[in-house]
């Protein structure tokens, strides 16, 4: 499965990047292809392009704050979880997707 994801936390120093790393690792484990955009203190990095989003079957938002450029994801199935969920139980997120 092709997945896009966005991570964003309140201070944007640590958890945004930890969650991104975690999602990347677990996705690989499940055999998915994933690209994670981080919205942290450095601004948007690894930005999802229009074609990234178009080609994805699902978008995961692991965020504690509003996603910047949410309208980019119109037409894509989005599941949104608290950022902590991506640290606590990332497997659970991917299992939910597979159902």
């Amino acid at each position, binding site marked *: 499965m092709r997945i896009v994801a966005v991570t964003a936390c309140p201070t944007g120093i640590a958890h945004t990047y930890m969650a991104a*790393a975690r999602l990347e690792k677990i996705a690989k484990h499940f055999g998915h292809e994933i690209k994670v955009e981080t919205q942290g*203190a450095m601004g948007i990095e690894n930005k999802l392009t229009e074609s990234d989003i178009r080609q994805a079957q699902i978008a995961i938002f692991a965020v504690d704050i509003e996603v910047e450029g949410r309208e980019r994801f119109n037409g894509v199935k989005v599941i949104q979880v608290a950022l902590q969920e991506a640290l606590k139980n990332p497997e659970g997120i991917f299992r939910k997707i597979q159902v």
Partner: protein
Amino acid sequence: MSPELSSTSLQFAFVCPLSAGMHARPASQFAGVANNFVSECVLTNLRNRRDANAKSVLSVISADIRHGDRCLVQVSGMDEQPAHTALRRFVEEALPSCDVPLAGSSTQTRNSVPRVLQAAGVSCYFGSSASPGIAHGKVVVVSAMSLPKGLTTETVTDPDEELKRIKLAIAAVRERIREKLTHSSSPLGEAVLQADLAMANDVLLDEKLAEQVSKGKSAGHAVLETGEFFIDLLRHSESEYVRERASDVEEISVQLLDEIYGVDLQKTVLPLEEPSIVVAETLGPQQLLALDRRWLKAIVLEYSGASSHALILARSHGIPTVVGVKNARLTLLPGLEVLVDANRGLVVPQFPAAVQRFYEREQKTLERQQEFLADDPGAPAITRDGKTLEVAANASSAEELRLAFENGADAIGLFRTEMNFLERDRPPSEEEQFAIYAQAARLSAGRPVIIRTLDVGGDKTAEYLNLPSEDNPFLGYRGVRIYGDHRELLQTQLQAILRASAHGRIQIMVPMISSLEEVLQCKAEIAKAKEHLQLQKIPFQPDIPIGIMVEVPSAAFILDQLCAEVDFFSIGTNDLAQYFLAVDRDNPKVAGLSNVLHPGFLRFLKRIVDEIHAAGKWVGMCGEMASDARYLPLLLGLGLDEISVSAVKIPELKRAVPQLSTADCKSLFTRVIARREIGEIDRLLASAQRLPSAQPLLNEELILLDSDSRNKEEAMQELVDSVYIAGRTQDRQQLEEALWAREAVYSTGLGFGFATPHCKTDAVTANSVGVLRFREPIDWGSVDSEPVRMIIFIAMREPQIANGHMQVFSTLARKLMNEDFREQLLAIEDSHNMMRYLGEELNISVC
């Protein structure tokens, strides 16, 4: 109407409608009504069954009537009917509106308490720090009420005579209050005076005084004992409002004692016999000097100003002092064991194990921070752009001088001499003074020592000088102004200073100069002293530099003329601000206005420095303003040649100078003086003064691999302390709060036994990464509920998000998700290897 109100006899009940209870003002009005009648009036608090004589304010207050208490009023006597009606009408109509809160009583700033202390559940008393340090001891309350020296055992020959003295005193005090009442312009001030008046009229007070006299006590003794009786009674009340009334009783008692013995009551010397915390409303410099310094561990004052002479003395003697502690004398009872944390402005009255542990760790933190600061104390303080600022010390004794040089002082910018003149019967001899000044010169080992000639007057007096008692001593006979009448004294001092100048680099400075004539007269006296020494063939430095204090505004407007006559200047900001802003710094009502950040004052300073420099002369600053690291960017912006501060401040200031550039500071100063309000200036300064430093992300002080912290609070405190020891924060409280604010969103415990507390805050001077590894795992509220073995913390400066450090932080965050990385972090044995490993993994240079 409640059933009790349908009275069968001459009584009625009511429920106290006052949110603050029956405090002095309503009580005085109540008693006022009752006193219009001859009938006996009894007020009973039905909650605690206390009966009060309704005609006595003290008695009514002592019944401790609080909001919602049911009370009964019973009236009996000749005029019981009209008395009953009048009291009932008062209770129903006037009483509910007796409760206007006193203005200006709730301006207390709430300090925040470290989390470890909060978690320990101790309730602290708050004030603000006037002299840093931490000390522990038993409370000794300095009462304003005391008998004159030697009169503690007065013999009474005629009790009637004593009673008469008391009656006269009471009449005079009443008269004085009435007099004040006619001039009172605010209704609240009036209400307070009315309450005082009622207290002075109180029948219970009369009775108690008469009782004491009948026991053979003198008038003064009777007042003292009666005052103490009521103060004790009120102080033990459960209501804060009632406890506060104890100070009213004290006030009246002091006034009565003043009447009986005359106003210039000589305060008795308070003997201290064990480690003591002296608690007082306020302290004069004489009172402070009279205290036994072996046992004086700390001072707690109710008074809230920060620059009185007593406080300057406390600082120079290194006595921890907290000021502005509301009702300190009422809450800190004599004999109570307390800890004074004058660094944080706290008084801690309880010592559970967690608090003791906190302060043991705090002690180590402060010691390590001092060691870190004292790395190379003697090195000059040079700004990033190469300007040297001389950081000198204020001192008044050999001990202070030694401490100053240990701490890295470049010079002695102010050597005060008056301390040797106070607290004695005659002035020190020339020999005695020479010994002191010559020792100062020798201890300074070639570094300059600016000796200030005698500066007495104001609140510093010595009996043999016969200085008159003045209504307004700060505008009176002080400093250079007394020299004309005490030429011999001045000659003695000048000769002693000149003789000492043969032993080191001594300079002479004259205080309180307001005119050119004063300078010329002093120079003539110096010339005379030189001539005398020459005749005696006694060596001295012939071209000894002569300077003046700039502390009277008029001097600042004749600087062109003064520059032609003297070699150097030192700005005394305490007096200069007081005179310039028309604020009595010892008057708590206006002391808040004495703000050196007033844009007018800053412009004034700029004008002074520029004009002196234009004439090619040297100018320093020796007032309190120079001691505050917050103001350092402004002082560099002003272009001062030197700052002279208390010895303990030197390491901090010397370390701060190299972090700053004069160009930045000059532009900051220009922006600051263009601001219209002090608040804006404060904010601008707060953001600018934490200018970023060039420190690397990581240094060894930030890596602690054997932490004995036992819980999250202690761990957070420890990491904050490590940042402090590394010289990366001056505001531990703000850093701690920023970290906890992030934890409040959700725990930074990321699982796997790791946590990453982090924050963005200006409280750090440099972006920092640190490590804490625990001996025993700690609960962190982690996502996987596992205790934490190690924390990696990140503290980032707010405006610097866009630099390369953020890249490092995100790399670090990502790596923490990697098991191998975590295993390595747990396995590395020492901090040096930890530094190297992190440096490699994060691709950063470590020092």
